[in-house]
């Protein structure tokens, strides 16, 4: 469903992402992990359309979307959450999600809607908020960190994406919060691509894991395979065993 071919991003002399090829199948839950500076966020931004790649192609549903701007990709069914919660702080939780619902239904630029449609939207909004265990009327700016992360996901879900990109969704959560969060994610039936530092969350959620280091894919496999991989251990622990006596 998502196919990256030789995707590259250069910043000056640095190849932040260096010829990454990767495909994500329908219904897959793939996690991207790797040390800081491995290029995960850059890769993510390119898939979402916030960054234009310096080379390579991105195919979504068999069509080349490499040149499409972000909002057009969103309309084709790619939704993302942000590494640092990116909410409409002054608006209520319900309004945050409603913006997503109206965008998906193509109603965002209408001057006016009938009450029937409005009720319809409201029902849908309530559904997503319930799913993520949030209350409607609180302003997004007043949420706790964990709630804000969940609102991020609720908004992305409201886009009914075919592919959901989660960028470090559990960052800054307490262990209890992130465990509960992993449960909520596991119950979704969307194709997922998730970047996450918290490996407990990754192994709880992911069906496949891809490991990135210095902009390249160095391993790809099931969570069990990744845990057992010597190569992965090497990038996480340093270049060699030689530091151990």
């Amino acid at each position: 469903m998502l196919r990256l071919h030789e995707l590259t991003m250069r910043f000056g002399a640095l190849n932040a992402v260096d010829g990454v090829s990767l495909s994500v199948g329908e219904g897959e839950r793939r996690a991207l992990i790797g040390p800081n500076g491995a290029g995960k966020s850059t890769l993510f931004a390119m898939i979402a359309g916030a960054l234009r790649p310096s080379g390579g192609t991105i195919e979504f549903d068999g069509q080349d979307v490499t040149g499409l701007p972000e909002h057009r990709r969103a309309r084709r069914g790619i939704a993302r959450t942000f590494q640092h919660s990116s909410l409409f702080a002054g608006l209520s939780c319900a309004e945050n999600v409603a913006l997503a619902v109206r965008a998906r239904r193509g109603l965002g630029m209408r001057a006016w809607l009938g009450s029937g449609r409005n009720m319809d939207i409201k029902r849908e909004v309530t559904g997503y908020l319930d799913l993520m265990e949030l209350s409607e009327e609180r302003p997004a700016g007043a949420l706790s960190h964990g709630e804000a992360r969940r609102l991020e996901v609720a908004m992305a879900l409201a886009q009914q994406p075919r592919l959901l990109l989660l960028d470090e969704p559990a960052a800054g959560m307490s262990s209890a919060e992130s465990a509960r969060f992993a449960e909520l994610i596991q119950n979704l039936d969307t194709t997922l691509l998730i970047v996450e530092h918290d490996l407990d969350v990754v192994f709880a959620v992911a069906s496949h894991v891809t490991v990135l280091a210095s902009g390249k894919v160095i391993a790809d496999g099931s969570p069990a395979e990744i845990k057992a991989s010597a190569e992965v251990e090497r990038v996480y622990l340093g270049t060699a065993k030689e530091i151990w006596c």
Partner: protein
Amino acid sequence: MLTVEALTSGYGQGQVLHEAAMELPPGKAVAVLGRNGVGKTTFVHTLMGLVKPWSGSIRLGDDELAGLDTRQIARHGVRIVPQGRRVYRSLTVEETLAISSGPGEWTIERVYELFPSLAARRGHRGDQLSGGEQEMLAIGRALLGNPRLLLLDEPSEGLAPLVVEELGRALSSLEGMSIILVEQNLHLAVAVADEVRCMVKGSFVYQATTAEFRRDPAAAKEYLGVGS
């Protein structure tokens, strides 16, 4: 020398440090290790006052630093080499070093001796330098403040192995300076540091001398590796 107790801080509503506590013996270099996102950068930023501590204490010698602003903390002799280096882009190497230089044993010439490749680029602006040169400049800028405590945040990030080696040699030569080194590159960390601390979810959970750490691969695997 440096005693950190029950330090908490974070950004906005998100708490990152949870009662972090550590001690730095005088004249020693301590490496702070941990997986991505556990709060290492927030820790050094809080020490420097770039992030305001919510509670807890940071004592440097007899001085309490928690609650002071960044400039006051700098005046107490703390310097930082930040992640991403953050050199002044429109200043030349020479200018950067000149405005950072204070009274003390570190002089601009001594910085050039430490990093000869920087001397060759003294007329170049910060944004014309390579990543390695920027790192050296950031270190030189910090050293010229003759710090009692030097904070280094991921100096090896994004640098070529040869450059990292050169950095490692330079940092190892700073024998006797009190250093906190945040690193992902274990090689560099064990080469430079006398002791090791590991951070998990905003707290320190492990401490050892570098020699002990090197005999204990299990600890590294537990705190830094992928397997669980």
